[in-house]
């Protein structure tokens, strides 16, 4: 079936500003958008540039704006999109080239919330015990693949480059609500600051954007509640 991909192209070595370029391709309705991009790159124009790796929605490389929504190119099939598809880079980070954006700020924000288990008690010979219910408490936020779809869908991120953004909060949540972790207070202090959770205006774009189905806004609200009521339950 014939599809037209309208792709925002930009190569800093030769272009003054980004411009759309159209490609008409023969694709199956069950092909992924990534298959369309590959077809262009491999058969027509090798200079088309995008990140990709696993091809099935678990590595987080190929988040981009597809018909105005942040999606993973490998997790959206052509049949969901109509015959004319617009593809742009994520918004909020500088474009390196075509659909590749600079991820430095994203990973810096992630690192800022201390995204690792903080537990100074020396563990016993076996595993630390954790009940299935305690484990379930933070299950949703363990699914994050750091694709940046949520953070770059957030209008607060677009206007305030200091805001840590939804993805960093999700990863803080993953530890704050882990019964084994003792660093919750430290992380809550960070998230209570100028660039933390209070910048969130509950727009829900992040929840809509998450390709892993994480209830991102809910996680942010749980962190806010932990700060307000000084309890982590």
């Amino acid at each position, binding site marked *: 079936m014939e599809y037209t991909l309208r792709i925002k192209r930009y190569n800093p070595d030769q272009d003054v500003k980004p411009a759309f370029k159209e490609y008409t391709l023969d694709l199956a309705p069950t092909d992924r958008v990534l298959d369309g991009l590959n077809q262009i790159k491999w058969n027509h124009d090798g200079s088309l540039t995008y990140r990709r*790796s696993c091809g099935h929605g678990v590595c987080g490389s190929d988040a981009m704006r597809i018909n105005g929504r942040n999606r993973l190119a490998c997790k959206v099939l052509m049949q969901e999109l109509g015959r004319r598809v617009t593809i742009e880079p994520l918004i909020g980070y500088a474009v390196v080239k075509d659909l590749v954006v600079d991820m430095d700020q994203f990973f810096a924000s992630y690192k800022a919330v201390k995204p690792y288990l903080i537990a100074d008690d020396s563990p016993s010979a076996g595993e630390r015990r954790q009940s299935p219910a305690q484990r379930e408490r933070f299950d949703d936020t363990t699914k994050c693949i750091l694709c940046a779809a949520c953070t770059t869908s957030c209008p607060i991120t677009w206007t305030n480059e200091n805001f840590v953004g939804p993805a960093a909060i999700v990863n803080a949540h993953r530890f704050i609500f882990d019964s084994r972790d003792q660093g919750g207070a430290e992380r809550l202090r960070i998230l209570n600051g100028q660039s933390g959770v209070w910048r969130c205006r509950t727009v829900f774009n992040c929840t809509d954007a998450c390709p892993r189905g994480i209830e991102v806004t809910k996680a942010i609200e749980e962190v806010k509640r932990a700060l307000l009521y000084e309890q982590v339950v």
Partner: protein
Amino acid sequence: MAYHRFDAVIVGAGGAGLMAAIQLAGKANIAVVSKLYPPRSHTGAAQGGISAALGNTEEDHWQWHMFDTVKGGDYLVDQDAAEVLAREAVDAVLELEHMGLPFNRTPDGRIDQRRFGGHTRNFGEGPVRRACYAADRTGHMIIQTLYQQGIKHNVNFLDEHHLIDLLFTDDGIACGCVTYEVKTGEIHTVHAKTVLVATGGYGRVWKITSNAMAGTGDGMAAAYRRGVPLMDMEFYQFHPTGIYKLGVLLSEAARGEGGILRNGDGEAFAARYAPTLGDLAPRDMVSRFIYQEVKEGRGVNGEDYVYLDLTHLPPELIDEKLPDITDFARTYLGVEPKTEPIPIQPTAHYAMGGIPTDIEGRVIRDELATPIPGFYAAGESACVSVHGANRLGTNSLVDLVVFGRRAGKHMLGFIEGNALPPLPTDPEFAARAQLADILSRPKGIRATEIREEMQELMMDKVSVVRDAAGMTAAKERIGELRRAFANCAIDDKGTTYNTDLLEAHELGCMLDCAEATIEGALARTESRGGHYRDDYPNRDDANWLAHTLVYRGSGGLEMRKKPVTITEFQPKERKY
């Protein structure tokens, strides 16, 4: 150019590379090079579990795990290595838990365990619950946890740096590597006392594969080009349950939790071939069962696929324990696994072979196991050999953490005892020449044409079932494709994020891996584990209870045999 000096450079930021990095962090000055961002590494796509004889839900012993690993590998496993794997798996899994890995739990709060193919109680009596897991995203949780630890320990990451070449002194001592910084096109010399290659597999050589697009054998090819042999490359695992046509993996955990394979007649055929383990027989066997069913006309609608049936499982079990893979079936096939069977076919999945190492992770240069000073390898890119002729499910993750950890610890000792070796003259020369060669050709064949033909050729001639005629033809054609590659041209000549250039470079690496695979497969005139030949259908211990080493020298390819280490378990017929 840019120059960096470290005690250790680790190439590859998957499970093995990061596990090694964590051993060294804070004790030595190290860098971790990744062509992606570390959490994007393919370890993250592993699903079902990581085995360790914790005995949390039923009796288990590491000796049983060791036996299963040896038998699963059709007795080509080096048994000293299998002992290390099974024994240290217990500690390694607990260490992951201590680092924060969110395993599923038993009602009393211990790490939960489930069944997996080829893992048995009491030396083969029946299935055992040995696989520790985090839903069906165990690999995701491992890569996340290890990356988090890397951040905690301030590991120096060189993200989006592509390995182009490995560096050795004139005396053959490892002294670093050359990388290409993707964002800027700048070449970097990373000068180091020790080098660990942990760059993963090369599944992209085949058309239908579960591997990420990054799985192009870069580290293996770089070593091979520098005269390091590749070991047991003929043993490449086809996982039985890939999504039809797409190749995306549906974990063996689906069968561990009770899923059943059915042919076009609706028959649960696995038990006909493997009476004791049935659907939980090792992967090489189940892939051949499927091949046989399809060949005899019992594929679904006479086509080349069968069904993975989960419809009899409780829906809440599917949601709790297999959420991701059932989501893949919905997304890519439009199939609801709770009510419909899933079309599957074998998919190229895992390299048992690779860069040969000893049990400390040191790369060895010959059949006498002579180590190359300062040079280490771990994970899928290495061959210890713990997987022999066929890897058991979950043992890849065990391999990563156990031997990544051992390599890291051994590197630390090496760093303390050795000075920084000198760089060779003009260390970037070969790397620059390789890339300049591709960039300089104004016109030529597209890399795509070569890549697609290679992938179809390997799928057709060098996959689940092989023979001399097919492989001889494949060898000849790969040779021609290699020559065609020397004339390939690309569209993008720029320096900013040039993935056109890197994909061409990766194609060169894949052609090297394909060449070594065929060389081993043609030489090995027997069937064993994942290497099955129609023309030599039986195992031949008299001639082939041995590893193969393939070298590429100036005079062409050279093949040598290396003896298998046997300690506890004498080779027997492999039945399940």
